[in-house]
């Protein structure tokens, strides 16, 4: 007895083109890999003999490692390239870099890049599966999928659940991808933070924007915190880290506003004492490390599916 998964999209650029059924297919394959791993299977042969290139043109620890581990668990050969060490620093265009990587025999390219839209551009340049590991402020689809996967593990169905995303939404690809993913799963999404980082115009995406933290947190079933990137773009958007913590940091007093067993999430890296009180980050409500763990299984699923779509093969799983 086996069940067969078919998948037609060789690229994962953003969440928007995915249907609810497709998101559930990703979850079910991730669950298969999670259960298999937890019952002791260390290697799977889905990508045996395949070469995956991890093109990381922006710094990353978690995402890059999770992709590398996912590749290795699937028996692929994974090679990581970073921005400073690539020919892009010698003036080579992204298109030429990508075509060279394909010529070298890459079967899948995973890319992180500082430009919004770069993953979409890359997918139009080469016919190799492209997995977006974060493009500028635009999208980080694997993060959103692992976040919502983790959330469904905790809450069961997220349909009609109130999920609040708090922090620097303006520059956050994690927030954008989570908005799309949560809405497809039926959640009610509230965005919160200072108005300079959470403009009202986000409501056009189908979410509620609130600059009042109490309203935003009240009765939330889950809260996703985002890191404040004050060292980067946000220097003119609010006065200081201290001011942010005073107005929007999640502390124990404010945590009483959310539901008692609400889920606390953070994509990392966390700044303890800034956007989240240290105790809360380590509390039983927090799934921060569970997110990291699930990141490997969700990425195994995505690698497998995108490769299967490219090679036009079906995935059959034991029932």
């Amino acid at each position: 007895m086996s069940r067969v998964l078919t998948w037609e999209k060789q690229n994962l650029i953003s969440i928007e083109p995915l249907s609810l059924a497709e998101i559930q297919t990703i979850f079910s394959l991730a669950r298969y890999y999670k259960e298999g791993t937890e019952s002791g299977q260390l290697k799977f042969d889905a990508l045996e003999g395949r070469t995956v290139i991890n093109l990381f043109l922006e710094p990353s620890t978690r995402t890059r490692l999770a992709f590398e581990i996912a590749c290795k668990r699937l028996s692929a050969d994974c090679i990581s390239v970073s921005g400073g060490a690539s020919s892009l620093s010698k003036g080579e265009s992204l298109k030429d870099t990508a075509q060279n990587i394909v010529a070298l025999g890459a079967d899948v390219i995973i890319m992180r890049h500082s430009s919004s839209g770069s993953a979409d551009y890359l997918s139009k340049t080469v016919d190799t599966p492209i997995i977006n590991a974060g493009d500028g402020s635009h999208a980080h689809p694997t993060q959103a999928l692992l976040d919502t996967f983790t959330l469904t593990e905790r809450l069961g169905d997220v349909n009609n659940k109130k999920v609040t995303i708090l922090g620097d939404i303006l520059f956050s690809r994690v927030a954008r991808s989570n908005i799309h993913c949560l809405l497809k799963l039926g959640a009610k999404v509230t965005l919160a933070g200072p108005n300079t980082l959470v403009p009202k115009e986000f409501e056009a995406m189908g979410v509620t924007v609130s600059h009042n933290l109490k309203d935003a947190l009240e009765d939330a079933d889950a809260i996703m915190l985002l890191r404040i990137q004050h060292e980067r773009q946000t220097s003119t958007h609010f006065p200081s880290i201290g001011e942010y913590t005073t107005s929007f940091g999640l502390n124990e007093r404010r945590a009483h506003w959310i539901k008692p067993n609400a889920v606390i999430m953070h994509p990392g890296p966390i700044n303890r004492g800034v956007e989240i009180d240290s105790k809360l980050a380590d509390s039983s409500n927090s799934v921060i490390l569970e997110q990291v763990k699930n990141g490997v299984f969700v990425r195994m699923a995505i690698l497998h599916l995108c490769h299967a779509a490219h090679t036009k093969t079906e995935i059959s799983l034991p029932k």
Partner: protein
Amino acid sequence: MTQYTWIKNGLVIDPANDREAIGDVFIQDGLIVDSLNDAEKKEATHFDAKGLVVAPGLVDIHVHFREPGQTHKEDIASGSRAAAAGGYTSVVCMPNTSPVCDNAGTLERINNSIEKEAVINVYTTGCLTMGMKGEELAPTGQLKQAGIVAVTDDGLCIQNNEIMRRSVEYATLHNLPIMDHCQDGSLTENAVMHEGEVSLKLGLKGWPRAAEDIVVARNIILSELTGARIHMQHVSSYHSVELLRNAKAKGINVTGEASPHHIEFTDACIGDYNTLFKMNPPLRTDKDRLALIEGLKDGTLDCIATDHAPHSPTEKDCEFDKAPFGIIGLENALASTLETLYHSKELSLKEVIALMTHKGAEICDLTAGTLSVGVAGDVCIFDPDQKWTVDAEAFKSKSRNCPWNGRTLRGQVKATFVGGKEIFRLR
């Protein structure tokens, strides 16, 4: 030997002279004349314009021909041929070449090239400030003597208000209009598109209207203070249109232009990061687009100018935020403007032609854009209803960065005459 040209039986539309009737246009030794006698008619070169519109050659007061310095994108030879193919007979080039045109020596070099290479009338502008750095004034008097028709730091708006005040004041001494690309740089750092719902969705840094509006307001105030004639280039914001409308009502000496792309497209056209819709100022919303059209209808905006900005295909083939700003439009501007303003019934044919001929010419004091007796026989002959499909690969321009590529438009240029000489004929 005297040369005669006889353009016959067309619908002659010459808005400056309030002429709109089936008739003929006669040119003798390069100049428009009232009539030719029978002997002269016999000798004349004939053009049968039956069923076509015969208009003054089009005038564009905002183009970039990239010479010297970036001739892989365009040069005066290719740019002027692109213009001719679009029905244009007079264009005004921006000074942001490499080196920039901030001294008479560079201008002389450009003038030599125009003399040798141009097939239409190519006019020049000089920088307002040295190196377009916004710090010290360029030698406007010397540049004027060498032939410029306006001063501008197009592309690099002067941020310092004292420098702007003095440079526009000084330009008035030489009776030159100032053309300004209105952009407050502090509000647009790293911005690549209009700030709004679409930029939020795409995760791209937004360029708010306010950055244009603040500078338009400043320029109105400085024009009132100094009496300088300040022309606002490629107005893109509805609020700037309102500011200009109020300023004009008060009699302040300011003008404005709209580009064919800003009256037709919106930020939504960027879609999946299409760099052919990346320009500065950016495409905005329907509200802005419609306000620009209203501005053109009620005279708040004076003319249509293309901001023809060539970039090579390689330069535009990259990540959206790395691509240069700008698009080309000379070869389809008449058709796209006819679609947006005439076929949509916003304006009459005569009104559209006025916006693309004498209205712009007047801003830069050019003797162009009319079929008045005694002026150069510059003529654009077109079929306003003829459909054609824009094929950028077939352009005379060296560049292909045209967002209309592949679109079918109504309005096809059939022939262009400069000084009575046919310089373009559609084959």
